[in-house]
C-alpha cells in the first residue's frame, strides 16, 4: 500500500526535522523540502497516468484541447507556487510566501485570459444571431 509508505516518509521526515531544528533551523527547512519532493515524485507517476486518460477522453469527445491543457497548466503552476509559499511560511517568512502566491495568481490569470476571450466571442456570436 502506497499510502503507508507516504505516511511513514512524512513521519520520519518530521522527526528528523524536529531533531535538527534545535541546532540548525536552516537545515530543518531543507529536510522538509526534501520530504515534499520525495512524496511528490512518489505520487506523480500515478497522477500522470490519470492525466493521459483524461487527455484521451477529451480527444475522443472532440472538445478543443486548449481548454483542458490550460486547466492542467493552472494546476501545475498552483502546485509549484503553493509548495514554495508553504516553505517560506514554515521558515517564518510569511510575507515572501504571500508574494509568491500573488505571482502565481497573476500568471494563472494570464493563462486564463484566452479562455475568457473565447467565451466572450461565443456570447457576442449568440447576441448577433438573435
Amino acid at each position, binding site marked *: 500500500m502506497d499510502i503507508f509508505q507516504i505516511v511513514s*516518509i512524512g513521519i*520520519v*521526515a518530521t522527526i*528528523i526535522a524536529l*531533531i*535538527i531544528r534545535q*541546532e*540548525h533551523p*536552516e*537545515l*530543518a527547512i*531543507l*529536510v522538509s*523540502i*526534501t*520530504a515534499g*519532493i*520525495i512524496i*511528490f*515524485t*512518489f505520487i*506523480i507517476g500515478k*497522477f*500522470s497516468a490519470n*492525466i493521459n486518460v483524461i487527455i484521451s477522453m477529451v480527444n475522443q469527445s472532440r472538445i478543443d484541447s486548449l481548454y483542458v*491543457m490550460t486547466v*492542467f*497548466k493552472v*494546476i*501545475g*503552476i498552483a*502546485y*509549484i507556487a503553493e*509548495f514554495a509559499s508553504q516553505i517560506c511560511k514554515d521558515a517564518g517568512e510569511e510575507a515572501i510566501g504571500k508574494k509568491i502566491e500573488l505571482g502565481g495568481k497573476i500568471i494563472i490569470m494570464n493563462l486564463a485570459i484566452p479562455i475568457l476571450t473565447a467565451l466572450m466571442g461565443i456570447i457576442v456570436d449568440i447576441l448577433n444571431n438573435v
Partner: protein
Amino acid sequence: MNIDILFKIAAIGILVTVLNQVLVKAGREEIAMMVTLSGIVIVLLMVVNLINNLFTNVKSIFQLY
C-alpha cells in the same frame, strides 16, 4: 525516489552539530562557524538537484513550456 537522502541530511546535521559543539568548547568559534556553513552548503547542493528534478517533472506532466 530514494528516502536515503533524508537520512543523509539528518546525518550531516547531527555531525555538524557535534563538531560545532566540540569546536566551541575548544574556543574556536570562527572554525565552528565555517563547519556550520560548509554543512549547509553541502546539503543545499543536494537539495538543489532535487528541486531541479521536481521542476522538470512538473513541467513535463502539466505541459508547462
